[in-house]
């Protein structure tokens, strides 16, 4: 009995769903072990009968909330796909301003009151609206992690994510530490699983996969002070994907 799988997207850039397509030839294996019954971006067919729902994107409006709750009730397992769904990602950057401010600045005098398409609330991650069974973090996700989650669900194993920092992967890849190059990096407090792709390419980690559950925030602040990173620089980097996260 092949599990039935569906993909949904809310407010997002759809880059995470694109990683499904980026599985390239492996996508043929994927559709062999699961039955994709709904994937709006790639398929015309749609069915409400699915076991596993992958949800990308953040929740912006009451109409989105309703659609999400409907998906939750149809699915046995709901997987949050990507930073926007898992932690809000860049979508949460606008939560710094009130909804009224943002609407006024962007639409000006245009008559949008009462129009549900424009009825915007502060951005929320998926688990701030419904219960989530598994997470695939990252901006975008690492397609290998997606494959791991799918195979885990297929062999009957609870998908798990690494609970150690990006430093572990970065060191194994023998990168010169970003701090040594005069930049700074959120790797020590960010969840691994991306294979330290940004430091591999000479850039510090921006924390797009979300911080560790048990983050050593004071130790991190000490390190940043040692390397003369200003408070302002620090907060701007922290806030890129993890705005309004607890713990710091």
């Amino acid at each position: 009995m092949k599990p039935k799988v569906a993909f949904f997207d809310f407010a997002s850039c759809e880059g995470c769903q694109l990683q499904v397509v980026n599985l390239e030839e492996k996508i043929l294996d994927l559709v062999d072990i699961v039955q994709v019954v709904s994937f709006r971006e790639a398929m015309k067919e749609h069915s409400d009968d699915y076991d596993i729902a992958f949800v990308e994107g953040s929740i912006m409006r009451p109409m989105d909330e309703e659609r999400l709750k409907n998906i939750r009730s149809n699915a046995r397992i709901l997987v949050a796909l990507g930073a926007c769904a898992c932690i809000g990602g860049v979508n949460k950057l606008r939560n710094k301003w009130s909804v009224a401010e943002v609407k006024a600045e962007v639409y000006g005098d245009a008559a949008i009151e009462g129009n549900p398409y424009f009825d915007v609330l502060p951005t929320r991650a998926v688990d701030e609206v419904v219960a989530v069974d598994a997470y695939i973090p990252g901006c975008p996700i690492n397609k290998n992690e997606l494959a791991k989650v799918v195979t885990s669900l297929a062999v009957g194993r609870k998908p798990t994510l690494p609970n150690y920092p990006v430093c572990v992967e970065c060191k194994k890849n023998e990168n010169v530490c970003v701090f040594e190059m005069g930049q700074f990096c959120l790797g020590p407090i960010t969840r691994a699983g991306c294979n330290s792709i940004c430091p591999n390419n000479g850039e510090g980690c921006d924390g797009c996969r979300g911080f560790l559950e048990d983050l050593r925030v004071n130790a991190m602040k000490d390190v940043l002070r040692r390397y003369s990173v200003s408070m302002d620089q620090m907060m701007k980097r922290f806030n890129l994907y993890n705005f309004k996260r607890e713990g710091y």
Partner: protein
Amino acid sequence: MRTMDPDSWKGFLDRLIEEPKLDVVGVKEKGGRFVFAPLDDANELRLDYDVTILPPKKELLPPNEDLLLFDISKPFNVLAAHDDRKKVLVGVHPYDMIAINMMDEVYLGTHVDDHYESRRRNTLIIASDILNVPPKAFCGSLGTHRVESGYDLLVTQFDDRYVVVEGTPEGAELLERFAETKEASDYDIERVEKLRDELPARYERQLLVDKYKWSEILEENYEHPIWEENARKCLTCGTCTLVCPTCVCYDVHDEVELDLERGKRTRTWDGCLLKEFTLVGSGEIFRETPTNRYRHRYYRKGMYLPMRYGFVACVGCGRCSTQCLADIADPLEVMNVLASSSMEDKKKLPIPEVKVHGVKQELLVPKAAEIIHKEHMTDIDTMYKIRLDSGQALGHRPGQFIELSIFGIGEAPISIASSPGTGPEFDLLVRKIGDVTSKLDTLALGDKVGIRGPLGNGFNVEALKGRNLLYIGGGCGLAPLRSLINHSMENRKEFKHITILYGCKDPSALLFRNDMQSWGSMADVDFKVTVDTCQSGDCWEGNVGVITTLIPGVDIDPDTTMAIVVGPPVMYKYVIRELKEKGLQDENIIVSLERRMKCGVGKCGHCQINGVYVCLEGPVFNYADIKELPEAF
């Protein structure tokens, strides 16, 4: 000793590089630092380097390594993965060579790790003398600035000449095949010695205490404030262990491809600084605080490994202190602080004797076995009867365990619940708490699993002969206890009076009801059972109360009685207190402890209780041996 002029040396290297069946890995520049990497050209080699980012251990124990390859679409299709490529490692500094020698002891000692052995055998090492010293290193203080053995060749680079020492016949053969060398002159021999002699003075940093005193100093300073002070700044990022040449702990995972057929079991570097290093299926983490984890690393390097193997496992390379972002990883600084402190409180850390017991099989490849019986005992506990496909008996001692594999999911350690006397079948009592045990619950009779073992030390049955036995089992601790209980029943005459006390949460959690009945019905056996709580309507007429409530009512002669206690971690403290009240001596109390066990053979490092490996020195312990161990209870 032989010599080559620079051109001959380059020719030697280039010929090695051109040799198709040989991979040449040497020190190269990367981003302003140095790394070991494949050489395409002799000119890339930088013997004047100070230190590499990662030590050459990565060539012998790769950060990610395939152990097994399997096909889960078939009932049992498993092969050991292996890498037989021949390699030459060029530019290994003395301190790294010494570290490799240490790694050899761990991986080629008592239980030989086949993957490591193959790679080590196929790797020729050309070590090289230190020419430049990194700022944080302190090899001079440890004597690791020079090495006498372990290498196949040792080269010293001068501007005008390369002096080469042959360390092994294989090294000599390599020179003969690929190099043109001349006999070394007295002048060359002298200047090599001079270079090595002058090295210690070039290290800016000096240890204030001899390395052979580290054990003693650490023994006295378990509660020193430095551990907590530094740990407060610790990111527990694992960097120090990953870049250390003597850190060799690893974790094991199963992966399956999207086709749900091909899969593999891989091992990856792991570190004791990481939070989940000691995590077990039930969710418990045994070394939870950053302070404990931070401290453990120093004790392992400076005390536990020296006691076990005879070497101090720090070679002063300075990698950890250079790369630690919080700047708290420096063994030199920590040991210097400890050496000059005077702690009033001397806390002795007794490490039990290393008891060597052989494992007569291929270490990492599981044997095929079949589920021949399955019986649910409670909602979450199931008893399985397993038989090896070979038809042979497992050959275990009571108290040992096996590692059970379900390929694609993983491997879990399970105590053997039956006595050795039951022939080719053995029992496993499995509680459904993690991935492997949950998947096992979905398997049916005739399905195949993988078995490695028997592992662990098992109960010392000899020491129990002629004694009165007091068995105390809590919850699923009754399972390993049952293997001994039944063994003592089968050999009844060897033991005197037997008392069995068993306690569990509530009536629905009772295990081994059939055995309970037969034990209860025996004339020369006292069997008492209790439940912690009981709801009305549970049909329970027996004792209600925690297991310690049963102990006062038992009549025992403390001098001739051995107590064997197995249960959940929280139980031990209370039970042992009651036993001491009864007058029992520490050495007459036997316990069986649980930790996270991955390899089962003392290599992956996860099951450590301070310096003790639960999979080697345990899981059965004599209470006297471990009562002082801070991490035991």
